């Protein structure tokens, strides 16, 4: 055991050198493949998700060219159906959910003043599984086995009788990949926030951002098994002739919808709740005051997390369920406007009661409020069981879901990206170009999506590849397409700004915005070990209240990967936890699992034989380590 005297004796420079050696990765490709550094893993997640965001945006532009005028021949039915299926599946399963998880992986340890996540190798495994999911969707696309039935492939259309070939299997198995990845991240995030908080960060001093990540992690754990179950049932229907969704022999097609939406609705909130966490951090920092209404905001987040599980049937008002039940789900869906509305009040009140500095991240939050609220209100309309019968499955819903997901989650994400970019890269993104991108995206988005509400009410169903001139939808559709192109141009400016600033941006220093939370207490970009010393916290906004030298805690080894575990509620130091070293086994386990998943599209025996390498790699991964004293750690 390393003595306290030894630690105190080490000079700052020597500390850093020893910590860097302890927490650093091996050089070269081996280091790349074995790393368990949460920052590197998160960066990979974010880069892949952003690349897919660009591809999905191009698909959207492609669809808007097809729909800009009546009777366009560009894509044809098959091409159009593939485009919206790929766009929706990729955006929801491979971009929105993973990118929010990636922000958690990157930020949670930094905001906790910790050196890594609770389960570093699980973290690495989750990324490789996510990458497997990305390849599972996009490689078949290159090979023209693209899913073509939308992002929720309702049975029986996706069943063996109506979807021959492997398009539906690709979709279903892609979900299995991403859900394994998401469950791994969620367990990790939850454990990290519960047990790796710095001394003094009681639950009552947990930043809203961490509350949001905690709640969405818990929601993920409860919601995702339902979708894995339903896609697995679909695969067995298709592969071995079970009849879960075949009414002719006693199956039920609505079972598919119940299971899917039991996941699908919480999914929207587990995209949205992290975004609220971004908003909280940005509003607080740029309003130069502690956020208004900590307790109401936390309670709102918790109640959204609970209510989200009680309203999935509002996706199914038209299927002919009993009206009494529908009324219950109407009330539950509308009730979620209370916590959401209260939070909106709290953000505006924070600006109202602060001295705001209008930098790009805060603009994104203002854009978020102005845009998301429209989506929330149109959500009230679709929550009404009778009115939804006129709105569901039309362009009104297309407008609604984009207002909620883009306005409600992507705008805060872009703000968060701009906000934490200096921390990740050491450079600040250009304000001027950031504002250009903001106005182009905000304007283009609203021009592109607001008219869709009207198109839906004018009778335009979603997922149609063509319409005739006689329907009168032409003029608004051209407006929609122009708006989409403007927004896409804004996105190009945003990406160019991010790339350019990486090399040419102004140097950031540790704390370019005057932030309040712990991630701003270390260098930008943070070293492999994140913090020289483990910080101690005495308020919600430690960097604002701690003037003078910051209190820190000593006692962790400099030469072994150790984390400080604290108690779940009061965050009192509990014990020192060994943190796993880099390892190749998570990657090999992910490869074995991927082979099993891909094989199970073709043969049920793949599950049997594929389980053997999975078991072998996981056994190697968890092989017990030698006790510390044999590793040369002298007292």
């Amino acid at each position, binding site marked *: 055991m390393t003595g306290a005297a030894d630690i105190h004796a080490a000079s700052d420079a020597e500390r850093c050198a020893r910590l860097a050696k302890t927490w650093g990765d091996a050089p070269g490709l081996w280091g790349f493949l074995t790393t368990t550094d949460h920052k590197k893993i998160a960066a990979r997640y974010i880069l892949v998700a952003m690349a897919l965001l660009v591809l999905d945006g191009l698909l959207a532009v492609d669809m808007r060219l097809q729909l800009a005028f009546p009777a366009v021949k560009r894509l044809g*039915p098959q091409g159009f159906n593939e485009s919206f299926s790929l766009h929706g599946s990729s955006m929801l399963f491979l971009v929105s959910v993973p990118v929010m998880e990636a922000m958690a992986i990157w930020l949670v340890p930094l905001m906790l003043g910790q050196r890594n996540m609770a389960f570093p190798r699980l973290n690495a495994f989750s990324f490789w599984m996510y990458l497997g999911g990305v390849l599972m969707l996009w490689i078949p696309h290159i090979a023209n086995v693209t899913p073509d039935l939308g992002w929720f492939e309702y049975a029986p259309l996706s069943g063996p009788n109506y979807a021959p070939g492997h398009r539906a299997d690709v979709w279903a198995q892609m979900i299995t990949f991403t859900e394994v990845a998401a469950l791994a991240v969620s367990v990790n995030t939850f454990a990290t926030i519960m047990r790796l908080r710095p001394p003094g960060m009681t639950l009552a001093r947990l930043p809203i951002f961490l509350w949001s990540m905690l709640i969405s992690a818990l929601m993920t754990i409860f919601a995702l098994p339902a979708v894995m179950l339903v896609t697995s049932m679909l695969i067995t229907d298709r592969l071995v002739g079970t009849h879960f969704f075949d009414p002719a022999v006693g199956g039920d097609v609505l079972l598919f919808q119940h299971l899917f939406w039991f996941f699908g609705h919480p999914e929207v909130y587990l995209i949205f709740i992290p975004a609220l966490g971004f908003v909280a951090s940005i509003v607080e920092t740029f309003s130069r005051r502690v956020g208004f209404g900590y307790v109401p905001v936390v309670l709102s987040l918790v109640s959204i997390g609970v209510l989200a599980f009680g309203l999935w049937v509002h996706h199914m008002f038209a299927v002919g369920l009993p009206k009494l039940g529908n009324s219950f789900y109407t009330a539950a869906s509308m009730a979620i406007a209370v916590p959401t509305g209260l939070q909106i009040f709290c953000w505006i009140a924070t600006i109202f009661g602060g001295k705001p500095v209008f930098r790009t991240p805060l603009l994104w939050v203002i854009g978020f409020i102005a845009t998301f609220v429209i989506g929330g209100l149109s959500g009230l309309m679709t929550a009404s069981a009778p009115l939804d019968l006129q709105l569901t*499955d039309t362009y009104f819903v297309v407008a609604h879901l984009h207002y909620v997901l883009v306005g409600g989650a992507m705008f805060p994400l872009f703000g968060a990206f701009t906000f934490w970019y200096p921390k990740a890269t050491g450079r600040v993104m250009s304000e001027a170009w950031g504002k250009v991108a903001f106005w182009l995206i905000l304007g283009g988005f609203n021009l592109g999506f607001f008219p869709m509400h009207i198109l839906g009410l004018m009778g335009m169903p979603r997922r149609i590849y063509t319409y005739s001139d006689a329907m009168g939808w032409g003029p608004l559709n051209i407006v929609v397409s122009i708006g989409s192109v403007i927004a896409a141009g804004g996105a190009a400016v945003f990406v160019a700004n991010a790339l350019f600033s990486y090399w040419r941006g102004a140097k950031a220093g540790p704390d370019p915005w005057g932030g309040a939370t712990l991630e701003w207490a270390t260098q930008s970009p943070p070293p492999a070990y994140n913090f020289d010393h483990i910080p101690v916290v005495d308020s919600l906004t430690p960097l604002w209240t701690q003037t003078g030298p910051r209190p820190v805690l000593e006692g962790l080894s400099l030469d072994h990967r150790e984390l400080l575990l604290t108690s779940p509620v009061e965050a009192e130091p509990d014990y020192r936890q060994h943190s796993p070293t880099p390892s190749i086994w998570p990657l090999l386990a992910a490869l074995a699992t991927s082979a099993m998943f891909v094989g199970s599209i073709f043969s049920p025996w793949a599950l049997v034989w594929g389980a053997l390498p999975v078991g072998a790699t996981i056994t190697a991964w968890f092989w017990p380590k030698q006790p510390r004293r044999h590793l040369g750690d002298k007292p």
Partner: protein
Amino acid sequence: MSGRASRIASLFAGLCAASLAGCAGPQSVFSPASDQARWLHGLFGLMLWVCGIAYLLVLAFLAVALWRARGALAETPITEPHDGRLQWGLRAWAALIVAGLLTLAVASFLVDRALAGAEPRGDPSVRVTGQQWWWRIEVKDPASGRWVESANELHLPLNQPTPVEVVSADVIHSFWIPNLSGKIDMVPGRVNRLTITPRQLGWVRGQCAEFCGLQHAQMALDVKVDSPADYAAWVARQAAPAAAPKDPVAARGLALVQDGTCGQCHALRGTAAAARAAPDLTHIAGRRFLAAGAAPLTRGSLQGWIAQPQALKPGAEMPATGLSPRDAEAVAHYLEGLT
């Protein structure tokens, strides 16, 4: 910033006004032509008002907050704010939200109850079956009590609550005629019902609203609200067998339909063609559109459809017939006479 907020507000108001004024049409929520659609239209109007006011309140608060911040200098961050007034604001805001939601929830419940209350006690007189990618229409002939079959064109009697039974023959479809009613899904293994009480004569249009495969986009339903006398006449006309061929070319067309590939899928009552896989052609020329709204029904479109169905509606279940141009012409000529 407040300028931007007011611009958005005026844009919103302008679009709402435009939407209410200029968006009427044969397939539009804005042109309700039945009791059910009118109730829903009224509910939408209420929602638009409540939500519009809520949105303006949010924007106004945001604008005030931004206006108040003008010229404020970034000093030391405020860590112990005094928010007494804002706390009261939060409570008032919560009360406003709850009041608004109660209004909407109660209105929604009342409309739902009205929709349920309009259900008549009797058996359905219209049955619609969704199929990839067309609609099988069956109506009960009050004269004989038998079900009479047609396709892709539905007539409804004015001022009578008509119960409609909807089912699916393959995948999930959704029956939606916005001017007359909200959607009801056609779910395999289930029988769903809705009631329509039309209040306005004339043609409206419906369209499948649940993605149902390749040609989901071209699955339209032509709907006519008739006076009760016209409706009775339409039912009687549909119940009659196919008209006999009027000339030798038409007779040759009939022979080709009965003995060739057409009769393997289609039915023409009164002839040997009696299959039920595809739309009933007994009175095809009495309809306005071909192939579930894919094209207006004319001699040209009929002949083109017979020769090359995949050109008009790629992926449709109808295969290329392989008829020679002369034969296709004869078939089209015969079908053209089936009013």
